[in-house]
């Protein structure tokens, strides 16, 4: 009889913890119980002081290019995130999302030599999400990989982010190419970046609570996109515009915070808005960035904006009101009909939105931490 280590108490726990941490930390698990111990384990780890070896971003930290396009192994968590509002040649709207996450299990400095691939190390785990929404249908796929063996990773310059055969690569002409394939659908998009990266918050440090915890966060807000979408064995040409986020931290949500509502909007006036709130029992923490068509972006403090849910799909609010009085913005954000749950290990809502009211426009909405699915 084979007698070995105990699978459930050994490996499975570790693997489960790993994935749970990464998923919950990133998405604050829609279907999970509301947080009691803070951000589904991650905050607990931080609270109990186990994160000493990880760096925590703070006010005064600055962005460094091109390094910040690459991974930050001393931080617990980070992601590369694209959302796009596209349309087919027939004018049919298409929503596209791609996100690649890195979740560190052990921290190490950038200078430290990574462990040998032959050891199948488990110092970091990677997760990639991809989704396509059109004609009322929402398709989602996810992938996982361990870091340091080459199956998944990121390089700052030229930019290359990959997990298996899904990858975002910088082309010789500076454009980015995003390729995603699943057995049922896929896309191959060319991203032409216009404008400089927009630093959110205090020159890149984006506070996530009144007590100062936060992340480093910048975006590319004006990306012209063209490419092909394959679905049901047919390939279609798509064009439109996108929004790209880079964000990293070691503690994203504070104990007691339940999830977030995030919006990235392209207004018809040519202005852009990023707005989010981190929900907790006693209200939440609001923040955002006003990016005028011309001129410098302006960080929006909590009191400068308000977000109100107006309608629900199940437990998830799919109709919102966003007000930024300073810029005469009073708009409704409406998700198209249907369910836009990314039904992965940690379900969350990810949908395109249309903008109406004081301004027209379009954009994307990500909602996490709601109990149950719509």
């Amino acid at each position, binding site marked *: 009889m084979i*007698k070995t280590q105990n699978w459930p108490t050994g490996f499975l726990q570790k*693997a489960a913890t790993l994935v749970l941490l990464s998923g919950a930390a990133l998405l604050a698990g829609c279907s999970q119980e509301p947080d009691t111990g803070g951000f589904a384990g991650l905050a607990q780890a931080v609270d109990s002081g186990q994160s000493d070896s990880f760096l925590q971003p703070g006010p005064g930290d600055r962005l460094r290019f091109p390094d910040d396009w690459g991974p930050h192994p001393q931080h617990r968590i980070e992601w590369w995130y694209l959302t796009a509002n596209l349309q087919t040649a027939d004018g049919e709207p298409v929503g596209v999302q791609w996100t690649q996450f890195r979740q560190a299990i052990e921290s190490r400095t950038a200078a430290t030599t990574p462990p040998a691939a032959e050891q*199948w190390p488990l110092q970091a785990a990677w997760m990639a999400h991809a989704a396509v929404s059109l004609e009322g249908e929402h398709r989602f796929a996810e992938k996982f990989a361990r870091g340091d063996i080459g199956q998944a990773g990121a390089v700052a310059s030229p930019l290359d982010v990959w997990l298996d055969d899904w990858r975002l690569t910088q082309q010789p002409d500076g454009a980015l190419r995003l390729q995603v394939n699943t057995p049922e659908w896929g896309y191959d998009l060319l991203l032409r970046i216009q404008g400089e990266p927009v630093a959110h918050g205090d020159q890149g440090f984006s506070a996530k609570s009144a007590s100062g915890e936060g992340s480093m966060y910048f975006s590319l807000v004006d990306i012209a996109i063209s490419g092909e979408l394959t679905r049901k064995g047919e390939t279609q040409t798509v064009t439109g515009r996108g929004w790209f986020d880079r964000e990293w931290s070691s503690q994203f949500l504070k104990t007691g915070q339940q999830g977030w509502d995030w919006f990235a909007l392209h207004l018809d006036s040519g202005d852009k808005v990023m707005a989010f709130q981190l929900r907790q029992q006693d209200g939440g923490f609001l923040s955002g960035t006003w990016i005028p068509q011309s001129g410098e972006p302006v960080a929006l403090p909590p009191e400068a904006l308000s977000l109100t849910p107006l309608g629900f799909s199940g437990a998830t609010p799919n109709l919102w009101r966003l007000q930024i009085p300073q810029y005469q913005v009073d708009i409704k954000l409406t998700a198209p009909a249907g369910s836009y749950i990314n039904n992965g290990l940690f379900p969350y809502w990810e949908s395109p939105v249309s903008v109406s009211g004081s301004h027209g426009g379009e954009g994307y909405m990500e909602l996490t931490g709601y109990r149950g699915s719509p």
Partner: protein
Amino acid sequence: MLLFPASQFSNLFSALFSHYRRHPLQLLALALMIMLATMLWTGVNHLTTQARASLGQSEQAVAARSQLERVDGQALTVADFVTLRRAGLCVMPWLEVESPGQGGRLVGVDPLAAGCFEQTGLDAVNESLEPSKKPEPAWTPMLNGEPFIDISEAAALAQNVASRNVSLSLLIVPPEPASALPADYRMTGFSLGPDTGELGDSFLLNLDALGFLVLLITALLLRSVYQLGMAQRRDSFALLQRFGVMPSAINRVLLVEILLLALLSVVPGVWLGRLLAGTVSGGFGQALDSLFDTPLYAGQSQSWLTPTATMMAIVLVVCLAQNVRALLLRTVAVWPLASLAKLLTGADAGTEFRQKPWPWLALLLAVAGLAMALLAQSLPLVFFAVALVFAATGIAAPFAIAALSATLARKTREPLARWRHTELGVMARRLALPLVALQFALAMVLAVQALVTVFEATFDEWLGQRLAADYFIEVPAGANADAAAQWLAAQPELAQSGDWHQVASGVAQLPATANDPTTANPKMDRKAQSVDLLAVGPVSPLLTMWSLQAANDQPWQGFAAGEGVMVNEQLARRYPLAVGDTLALTLANTRFELPVLAIYADYGRPAGEVLINLELLPDEFVPAFESFSISPGASDIALISDGLQRLWQVDSVRVRDNKRIRELADAVFDQTFLLTRAMTFVTLVLAAIALLIMGWVFFSIRAWYFRLLQVWGLTKRQVLAQLGQLALTLTLSITLLALPLGVWLTWVLVHRINPLAFGWSLPMAIYPGFWLQLGVVSVLIGLSITLLMRSQLGGSGPKPVSAASLRGDER
């Protein structure tokens, strides 16, 4: 539904139910029987489902999967894994580390990479499902075992182990199209052990047949108890009718009554059945030092609805059979069918039983059933034949006991013996249904025991034949197998104490068959031109231990000298071939005509196979697969694999440890068989309890009559002795009558159902030792009834009775 006012219904209900107020024991017995029958069927059904799941999982655990190998024969590395994943292939690493000092074999896997194994083909389904309703990943059961650890831990352990004890495999979900595979890699089978194939399917079919029998037995038990109660309430019904209550109104009230009773008894019965199944399987699980720390049988959670609804339906149909029969008789006017309808719905034991046609009908059904079972060429017909024979036995058994007792009563002069024989006849008639149920249960237990033992032995022999050698070494692509054979032959230690042979497999062409159209399977016909070829040599004890079904005088000597071939059971059956026949076969354009030296048992493998001496293979024959089977004896397998590695100049040699596979297969199959035995055990115990309750109730009803024996001058002890003899004769007779039925059922399962379903047959065996055990069980039931009667006899004196009662007539 109710065609009269509620108050009237309520009054009638109270009047009818007052019977049970006067006889609470009867109500308790009926409720208990429904509950026990439900418990029996739910328990058995639960165990069957779990045995099925268990076998399914064990098959999944040892079944073949696909893996990738490098075309250049080099060992796989993490770089290969990354290359393949980045090419979009679904590949999972499987790092095996053999570390004797640290607990044996460990398998390192990467759960993060396993996601695509579960996603394949499920994406569309998953899209539409709520997260909580998503199916469990198909891969999960494989990873629930103890030997699996994270691949990083396995890799760390591998650093302290010789490289020959570490092997990395890359499991793959075969890509669509196959051309998507990079040119540097090829796909081969990956297996933890042999595929049980049709042997497992056959076992499951038999489980289903036995599950059906259990349902039949529970129905009979219920019917018997209900009928007993109805017979006792006949006077009440007659009285109510005299007061002007329509029989249809009584029937409606009875329907409501049984519905309520069924509901109140079925639900706890289902609960008890599940509890019983859980206890039985849990107990076995603890006793079994399983390879997997997640019990195999724990994975199945069944709904409450199915067993509850099934048993409610059974209770209603069985208890209200009288009404069903009336309906059948109205619609079926033709006599034989009407008789069958009467038979199936249960005749009134008190009157119709004594009518002459019954023995003849039993005989007719038995002859028809036996003939049909022997000659039928389709499964439904064989199942129908089984039903006929069971029906015949069901009718004949109580009749036979009654007839025998009547004859004995006539012949004996001793008054007490005559009384006993007559009483036995009465009991056989009045307890006909529970007795038949016990007979069926005993027959089923007997058949299951024989079948499970036969299957177990066959699985064992089958594993033994395929895993005869301790180790199995694959010849890598491009390596010279003949050079390796020469090298092995030159190893003195191996030659002295070990055994080995070389195996090359491929395909041989046979001329068109002259099939027997009555037994031919069209699917096999098409394949008949091409059969599997297994070339082996030199002849080692690993081969000569094979079980031969037929052979000439010295088959292996002739085989070693290249004087002929051997064929497997299936090929011999299909072609047909006998020992001494000449077989013409073509191997790579070379035609051979060789005599058949022997036919070897192949334990359910459906493909035809020819075994030929390796030396006869023509040079141009290209084997599909080459390997060595090696039992190293005093030699060390590590030295042998090192030697072959050097000889073949490859990074690693794939060594399969057959002993470990055997342990794994044994463990999982043992568990399946234990569950099957648990199922039969539960059936027997509950059938025995049913008979005990029935016997007790029946003896209790006649207690006043037995007390007359004391009035006639017998002591209580003497009365008890008489009752003991009576009960023992009854239960032993039914056991004796169950034996032929059980043996016949085994024969049908093994020799008729199996060949018709799968085209091959298992050896049949009978186990008289087990018959003795069943005899002991029936004696215990008889003794228990006697003991229960002891308290009944101590009650009040005989009550006034009618003249008919004093004659011992049936009321």
